[in-house]
């Protein structure tokens, strides 16, 4: 199975357009970008994908060693870039995928033209002299929430979803489908996300970056966005009036406008 099959890659827009890759964050799948990507597919070659275990990806490709840290997810992104021969990529990452983009761009700067980081956080746990917003108990509590919310992943449903990858409508018909995943994979992704510390990696990024910071973001509060902006060698910080952690869903027009303004510079 190729990386693009494993990750349910969907491509829109002109084949010779500059590649624009959208990466969804922890929780749901590429549908998170449904209100945003159509604004770019006239000009860009839009590439969407699902992280392993989410959406239409091949859950069997989940590897508890590879996917124990964000580096494994960054390697997945680079594998897609390699297969599709994407160069000069505008990488748009939401939430944890902002850091996945940072890691990918730090490792292979020649692939990337710009980074757009929506609600990034290089470390969610508090540390000496750093406020990430969360304690280890909070993350343990999140893992418990994940355990109680198997969202359509009972043992009777899983085979239907897993056994018919060629018929995604089967999975779509079920409720909560955009956020459905194997609880084990969700827990692993939560650990990789919320226990990560990628503060040192920010300085390694040579790619120009836009940091989009929503107001009142409970997951990545403003001081964290400012920290990211401060540590990235070449970045712009734009504060959105949109509230919450998902401006791509709650305020797509404002999000699109901010990205377009930045890319036109």
């Amino acid at each position, binding site marked *: 199975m190729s990386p693009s099959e494993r990750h349910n890659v969907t491509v829109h827009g002109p084949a010779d357009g500059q590649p624009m890759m959208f990466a969804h964050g922890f929780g749901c799948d590429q549908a998170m970008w449904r209100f945003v990507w159509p604004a770019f597919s006239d000009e860009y070659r839009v590439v969407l994908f699902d992280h392993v275990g989410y959406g239409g990806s091949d859950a*069997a490709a*989940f590897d508890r*060693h590879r996917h124990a840290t964000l580096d494994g997810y960054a390697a997945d992104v680079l594998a897609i870039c390699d297969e599709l021969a994407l160069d000069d990529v505008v990488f748009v990452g939401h939430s944890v995928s902002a850091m996945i983009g940072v890691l990918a761009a730090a490792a292979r700067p020649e692939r990337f033209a710009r980074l757009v980081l929506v609600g990034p956080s290089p470390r969610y746990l508090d540390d000496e002299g750093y406020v990430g917003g969360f304690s280890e*108990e909070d*993350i343990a509590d999140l893992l418990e929430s994940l355990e109680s*919310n198997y969202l359509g992943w009972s043992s009777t449903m899983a085979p239907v979803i897993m056994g018919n990858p060629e018929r995604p409508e089967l999975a779509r018909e079920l409720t*909560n489908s955009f956020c459905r995943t194997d609880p084990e994979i969700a827990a692993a992704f939560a650990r990789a996300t919320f226990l990560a510390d990628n503060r040192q990696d920010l300085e390694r990024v040579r790619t120009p970056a836009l940091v989009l910071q929503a107001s009142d973001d409970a997951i990545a509060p403003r001081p964290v966005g400012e920290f990211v902006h401060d540590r990235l060698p070449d970045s712009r910080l734009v504060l959105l009036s949109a509230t919450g*952690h998902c401006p791509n869903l709650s305020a797509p027009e404002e999000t699109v406008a901010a990205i377009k303004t930045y890319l036109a510079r």
Partner: protein
Amino acid sequence: MTIPAALLDESAEDLFETAPCGYLTTAVDGRFLRVNRTFEEMAGREREDLLGKRRFQDLLTVGGRIYHETHLAPLLRMQGSVREIAVDLVRPDGSRLPALVNSVLRYDEAGRPAVIRTTVFDATDRRRYEQELLHARRREQEVALELQRSLLAGALTEGEGLELGVAYHPADKGLEVGGDWYDAFWLVPEETIAVVVGDVVGRGLAAAATMGQLRSALRALASTGFEPGALLEALSEFSRRHELGQMATVAYAEIDVRLGLMRYACAGHPPPVVVEPAKPARLASDGRSPPLDAYSFWTDRPDASLQLPPGGMVVFYSDGLIERSDRPLQAGLDELLASVDELRDARPDTVASSLAQAAAGTTGSPDDVCVLALRRRPART
């Protein structure tokens, strides 16, 4: 019997306020706009303390708030409704109320999301029961794992004439133990060693228990003087008579470590790999017969033999090492031969752990992996 008139006054107001669930309306960012009396009681807060002052997510645990931001809110935006989301409400006194939440998004005339209507159900008992089920499932996995470990425990046979190494890696995915096993014991001390790798169908406690019985039965039968093929048929008969371990596969070998003679038979089990000095690794593909109790009649199970020169190595393994969904079986065997060739000069324990680790590290290895490597010591000079 007449129903009191006051109770028949089911005004919309009354239906809302005393509904048997918490009922609330919030703005799209979660700010409370309206709550019913039932919700006030559930949350332990008066509406004056909620309306316009707090957001629904502020009443959740921190973990629940992350879940709200990463799952509930995006789902609601994408599909217009969510159902059966489990959260804990935190009351002012710090106590928690496990709850199930359903929400629908209401749109304005222009089709923009305007308000969220949410019902909240007390799920205290249900959550407690779910947790009991989860703990029970985990406990069963632990017990099976303990059983498997205790069955496989015990120092492996060591001797003057041989070096032995084993590795066992549970499946990458899925938490239940499998039914693979290995064994090695002297038939004649320092002279003839019996080596076994087997694989029982199924997973979990039952598979581990069956594995233990087959392993003991084979040990008992090995001391009766059967040839390897006949021994496997006797084991198959045991399996048939006691209705356990049907379709289990076994590779069995007896090796005279002084003379280097190996006699072996495989019941449905993948062929061992043989490494002779200065020759490419090859499969010992003779002595093959069907899995245990595959047919309801006596099966003729042939033996085979080969000569293992000093320094030569033989590797037994379970099918988890070679079977993967994304490639044909032959490709798995070819890859195994190549890997063994690369490891031909390594110690047997390194060979076993490297092979098992490589298989466990690849994607899509859904099965347990069990490897046993044995090297005949080179002649003393």
